[in-house]
């Protein structure tokens, strides 16, 4: 096979539940592996917070919406010879198949490299896959592919309940689930059929309770294949593997069991025709030893990212080389310098735990099952099971409810099941009882029970050297030991060190020590030999951002990764600390040294003690890293950049208010309160509406707009609970104002304004959820000047060295400052991409004492950041926006005009107004938005939409079809949405309001039907204007670097 000269790589778009940073990681490896061969790479992704969209990663970067139409334009422009479909998750796979099926690839003479269309179809089409399994003699669960409800019901009763419903071609099991009877089957199946790209779903016998195992296979085009990693889900069948606690390697299989599954995995990879990587899932009844094939993913996946990090074997890189025609033994193992033909041997255990967003969605059921709800995950490495488990648990950074009643979480499982198991053992439950309830393998339950026994002894026995060593080897943190012994963490740390018990660091080398590793990474254990001799030379530690969660996403990992790059350029060695297996920052060659560790004070400080770096960078890893600054400094670490006192001023409302007053910068009237009485008093002084929130927040957790004493009382009750007696912050809420924010870098003298951004939605929508435009479009020159002036004053007063993000509200010519974040913000990658200047690089240079260069980037275009929400997965959550952040990911649209940029950003976020056969919009606005009805209707009509609404809203609109309120007649709006008549919903929610309101029902049904639902009048107006402008011409698609001229 001839190597292609130019290859198209499709990314995975915005971060959504089920598709996270792992595809930036695999995409980056693929790009590098291609470039090494002198092949030009065309990369398309709408997500700006990705390393793959950096101009150094690919040759031609397109930050454009991931749709077939856009991709065809890019193909026509770039004329790639080949396409890699397997690096960008299900999004890229589906797009590639669409391009293939519609003949676009053929028309432009583009071929697949790596796993091809035929193999993808074989793996993804249930019918063909099942037929293949029968041919190969592979056991599968009885199942039937159905296209309608009636045949689904028939199939289910023939197979017998419980039944699992799986829609074809969807992401993270969207629309699937387990049901025990016909009544539950019907609604689920209806959803599944709608979610499926092909309108088909599989009705399958459920193997709930069986052991679940995954095999990561790589196979070359000559048929050589091997297993990179086998993993066991601690949560048995019934819980999606992305929602399960996973351990690698498998712990409960004998060699005979393992070889049986290995043989099956290789045979399946061969049968499907994989050329690259794939993931095969099995269920095994461990009482009988019988197994069954669940599915195969013919692409790189979240599991393959985990397998790569767990073993040190770069699967995406090897899969790319395979796509170019190399045989496995011809590819080099970059970790050891030996060949890539081998199966990694681990001499440790790896545990992955998902990170769920239920703290953000208190009204959503915490139950976990066959559909993904988690946003991210942590990985930990240890030499024993409890060691790895405890490290993983503290990597999660979750705040647990004060009381966990185990019975509520064991079965059906919730995100808290692992804690419920621990608590059950504390309460004296037996392994057998818990096994019969959860079906979790007894071996795991026994290990957890043993761990609880160690915990009990820590609390009971005198803490001597032997017990301390045992506790540390079982993974207990100093702070856990402190709370069990009524001591404090620093005292435990001192005692531990006095025993000479300090961690040693071991290498992840893919070969269990058999060969010397050249690019290793490390994890801590309490053993004899420390393999991490301090790195020689000038070095800096970068503290990462941990698991992807709402409010702290891939953007921070992007910044940390760039810090490693910048340090290298500046002649420093970089040491990364992080625990997220999905990301580029934890790729083995991103930094000079990687520690795969929890991000707690203890774990980070131990690394600082081991390495003695020149400094520590805390401002790039979001709230996770900045929260550690003060303690690390007190313990003797040198924090680079903004001094901790500056950080404290920015985060302490009282001190910040004093500062703003001193600088003469207006703030919305604000106060703090530590009791309900104080809060009520403050509120009456300030006047409703007010914004209330607990102090020290991450992404607006617990933030609410409150409009009455009654609401405030209720809030106080919940918030004080949330923030552990820390005060409640109260701000005047400024209605109908423009919100804007600035990302800047300062060296202490010069403040470089990276971007002055304007929110499209009015103030009150969390900045992480707002659509944002750069440059600002509604601000006057005078206002801009003032904003820049304030930014400079604040930055200097806080002593900012490095990055700062400041948020403002502009109301009738007055500029109010809302807050200053002395750290990287989530817009840093967006701004960096928009202006073509890497802000993180400037920040790192400033932190190391360099002066900022004189740069004056000119924007000849518009960039808009839009967002995506997880509502589809989190049933029960209302989708209206507020001061609490709820989006999981972001998109970027670039255009010569604002309209084009905005349209592209929304298109990339999945709001598609094109291609509807029968476009009909339903409008329902709150009273204050009703004056917009005529304009909105006019624009909708111009776009060919029919208009529906209640009489109260659309009564005055000519040609509109009035429909009854929900429950007051037929068909109502919900029925019209479900029947497919209505294809766009514009609904602005009234204040307050629970799950019983009509608005809530409308929004929910639009989400379930997968049609756009716009909840903000500004978003709607701007979008319609943009679409109208665009209707007249072709969408302008360019390389990201072509917009500047």
């Amino acid at each position: 096979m001839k190597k292609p000269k130019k290859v198209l790589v499709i990314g995975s778009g915005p971060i959504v539940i089920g598709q996270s940073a792992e595809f930036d990681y695999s995409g980056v490896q693929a790009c590098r592996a291609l470039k090494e061969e002198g092949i030009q790479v065309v990369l398309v992704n709408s997500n700006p917070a990705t390393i793959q969209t950096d101009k150094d990663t690919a040759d031609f970067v397109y930050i454009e919406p991931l749709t077939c139409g856009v991709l065809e334009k890019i193909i026509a422009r770039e004329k790639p010879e080949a396409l890699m479909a397997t690096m960008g998750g299900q999004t890229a796979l589906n797009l590639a198949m669409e391009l293939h099926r519609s003949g676009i690839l053929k028309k432009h003479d583009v071929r697949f490299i790596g796993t091809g269309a035929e193999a993808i179809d074989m793996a993804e089409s249930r019918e063909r896959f099942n037929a293949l399994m029968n041919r190969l003699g592979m056991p599968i669960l009885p199942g039937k592919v159905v296209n309608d409800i009636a045949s689904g019901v028939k199939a289910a009763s023939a197979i017998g309940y419980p039944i699992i419903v799986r829609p074809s071609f969807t992401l993270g099991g969207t629309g699937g689930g387990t049901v025990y009877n016909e009544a539950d089957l019907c609604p689920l199946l209806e959803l599944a059929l709608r979610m499926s790209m092909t309108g088909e779903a599989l009705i399958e016998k459920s193997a709930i309770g069986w052991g679940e195992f995954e095999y990561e296979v790589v196979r070359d085009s000559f048929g050589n294949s091997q297993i990179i990693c086998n993993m066991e889900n601690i949560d048995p069948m019934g819980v999606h593997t992305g929602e399960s606690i996973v351990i690698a390697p498998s712990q409960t299989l004998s060699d005979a069991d393992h070889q049986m599954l290995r043989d099956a995995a290789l045979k399946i990879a061969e049968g499907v025709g994989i050329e690259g990587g794939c993931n095969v899932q099995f269920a095994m009844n461990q009482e009988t030893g019988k197994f069954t094939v669940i599915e195969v993913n013919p692409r790189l996946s979240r599991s393959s990212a985990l397998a790569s990090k767990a073993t040190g074997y770069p699967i995406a890189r090897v899969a790319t080389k395979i796509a170019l025609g190399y045989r496995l033994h011809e590819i080099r193992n970059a970790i050891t310098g030996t060949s890539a033909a081998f199966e990694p041997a681990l001499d440790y255990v790896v545990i992955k735990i998902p990170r769920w967003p239920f703290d953000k969605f208190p009204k959503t059921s915490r139950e976990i099952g066959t559909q993904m709800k988690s946003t991210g995950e942590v990985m930990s490495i240890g030499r024993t099971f409890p060691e790895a488990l405890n490290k993983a648990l503290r990597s999660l950074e979750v705040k647990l409810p004060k009381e966990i009643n185990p019975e509520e979480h064991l079965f059906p499982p919730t995100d808290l099941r692992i804690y419920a198991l621990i608590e059950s053992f504390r309460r004296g439950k037996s392994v057998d009882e818990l096994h019969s309830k959860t079906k979790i393998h007894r071996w795991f339950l026994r290990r957890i029970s043993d761990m609880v026994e160690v915990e009990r002894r820590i609390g009971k026995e005198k803490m001597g050297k032997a017990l301390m060593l045992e506790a540390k080897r079982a993974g207990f943190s100093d702070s856990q030991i402190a709370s069990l012994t009524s001591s404090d963490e620093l005292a435990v740390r001192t005692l531990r060190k006095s025993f000479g018990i300090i961690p040693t660091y071991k290498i992840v080398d893919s070969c269990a020590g058999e060969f010397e590793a050249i690019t290793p990474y490390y994890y801590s254990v309490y053993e004899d030999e420390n393999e991490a001799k301090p790195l020689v030379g000038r070095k800096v530690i970068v503290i990462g951002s941990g698991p992807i969660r709402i409010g702290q996403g891939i953007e921070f990992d992007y910044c940390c990764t760039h810090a490693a790059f910048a340090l290298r350029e500046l002649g420093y060695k970089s040491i990364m600390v992080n625990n997220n297996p999905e990301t580029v920052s934890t790729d083995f060659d991103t930094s000079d040294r990687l520690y795969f560790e929890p991000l707690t004070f203890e774990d980070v400080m131990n690394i600082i003690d081991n390495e003695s770096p020149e400094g520590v960078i805390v401002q790039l890893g979001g709230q996770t890293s900045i929260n550690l600054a003060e303690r690390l400094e007190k313990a003797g670490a040198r924090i680079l950049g903004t001094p901790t006192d500056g950080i404290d001023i920015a985060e302490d409302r009282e001190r910040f208010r004093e500062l703003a007053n001193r600088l003469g910068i207006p703030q919305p009237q604000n106060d703090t309160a530590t009791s309900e009485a104080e809060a009520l008093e403050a509120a009456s002084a300030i006047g409703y509406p007010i914004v209330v929130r607990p102090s020290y927040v991450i992404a607006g957790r617990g933030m609410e707009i409150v409009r009455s004493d009654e609401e405030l009382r209720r809030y106080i009750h919940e918030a004080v609970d949330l923030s552990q007696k820390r005060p409640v912050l109260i701000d005047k809420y400024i209605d109908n104002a423009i919100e804007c924010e600035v990302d800047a870098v300062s060296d202490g003298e010069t403040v470089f304004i990276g971007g002055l951004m304007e929110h499209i939605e009015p103030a009150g929508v969390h900045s992480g959820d707002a659509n944002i435009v750069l440059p600002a479009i509604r601000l006057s020159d005078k206002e801009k000047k003032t904003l820049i002036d304030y930014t400079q004053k604040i930055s200097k007063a806080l002593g900012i060295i490095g990055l700062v993000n400041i948020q403002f509200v502009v109301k009738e010519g007055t500029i109010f400052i809302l807050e200053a974040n002395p750290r990287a913000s989530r817009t840093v990658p967006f701004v960096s991409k928009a202006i073509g200047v890497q802000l993180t690089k400037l920040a790192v240079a400033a932190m190391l004492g360099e002066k900022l260069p004189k740069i004056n980037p000119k924007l000849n275009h518009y960039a808009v950041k839009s967002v995506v929400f997880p509502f589809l997965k989190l049933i029960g959550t209302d989708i209206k926006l507020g001061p609490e952040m709820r989006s999981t990911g972001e998109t970027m649209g670039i255009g010569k005009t604002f309209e084009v940029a905005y349209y592209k950003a929304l298109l990339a976020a999945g709001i598609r107004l094109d291609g509807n056969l029968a476009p009909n919009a339903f409008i329902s606005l709150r009273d204050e938005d009703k004056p917009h009805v005529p304009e909105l209707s006019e624009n909708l009509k111009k776009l060919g939409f029919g208009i529906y609404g209640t009489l109260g809203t659309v009564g005055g609109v000519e040609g509109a079809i009035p429909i009854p309120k929900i429950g007051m007649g037929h068909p109502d709006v919900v029925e019209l949405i479900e029947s497919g008549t209505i294809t766009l919903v514009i609904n602005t929610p009234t204040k307050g309001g629970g799950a019983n309101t009509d608005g809530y029902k409308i929004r929910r049904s639009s989400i379930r039907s997968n049609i756009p639902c716009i909840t903000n009048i500004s978003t709607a107006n701007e979008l319609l204007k943009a679409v109208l402008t665009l209707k007249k011409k072709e969408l302008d698609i360019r390389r990201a670097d072509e917009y500047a001229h």
Partner: protein
Amino acid sequence: MERERQRLRATLVLKDGTTLQGIGFGAKTEMVGELVFNTSMTGYQEALTDPSYGGQILLMTYPLVGNYGTNAADKESDHVQPSGFVIRELSPDAEHRQSEGGIHSFLKDNGVPGIYGIDTRMVVRHIRDKGVMPAILATSDSEAALDPKRLLSKLEFDYSSIDFVSKASTKKPLVFNKGGKTRVALIDYGVKMGIVRELMKRKCEVHVLPSSTPASDVRALEPSGILLSNGPGDPAMLAGAHRTIRELEGDMPIFGICLGHQLLAHAFGGDTYKLKFGHRGSNHAVLDNRSGRTLITTQNHGFAVGRIPKGFETTHTSVNDKSVEGMADEKRRIISVQYHPEASPGPHDSLYLFDEFMKMM
């Protein structure tokens, strides 16, 4: 119960004085052997019963051992073969449908000591850098018995001077699958049952013969082919075996596995050398030079063939260190591999070699 075992202490002392103290299990005793490591993540029971580990103390690099217990089906011989077992963590209980007991009792019943709770990775890195070396492992509840100085002074052991084969080999001929379609004479230098099982699966009548069986006795059985088994020790010192093999040449096809492969090299004018720390595990890639395919193989050898005999070609090569992994002489109808096509434990990628052998017969 495994959990209720007596708390033993244990000391492991290497020839160069490196000492590790941990928790003891298995038998309360002391044993010497050559300390080697195996990187398989499963299959500890098969390894423990593999006769090729005779005279060696076996260290598993995977830290959690004993999780799924032991059972009758996964035995490669009737008893524990290595003289000691070194692991990071011993599972206090065994959970598996086939489990008949834990590793502790298994070792104890066989009189073999074990140690856990030590930094096994440090030991592996030490051996990797310094090469395999003799070691002594003692388990006891008395301090004196565990004194490193005393143990070091007792550490007299020269692996290459000991004839392990005659100990490992069957004392009298055994027949498996009597009446099977194809008769195979298997010369037992310490055979793994996995090899016998693969032949039985292919309807062979397998005659397992003592390693000292003269060529004439072998021939008298009128077998269709001869299998030279794996086994422990230094292949260079087994002059008798070299001679027997030379005498058997020509009459019928021969298949050599591991030690059998090395003996073939010696018999026909090739030689072997000792590897620094051996190949032991189930993840080693081997290139089949004839088909161009790579195979993931199970390996357990401390020696390798250096010069292959005249008339032979190298059929299999280690992907990593390029050492000889297989050779064949078409005229003489001989094939042999350094690694373990029968797996157990390990991948089944190379079972095709048994089919090849069947075709030759």
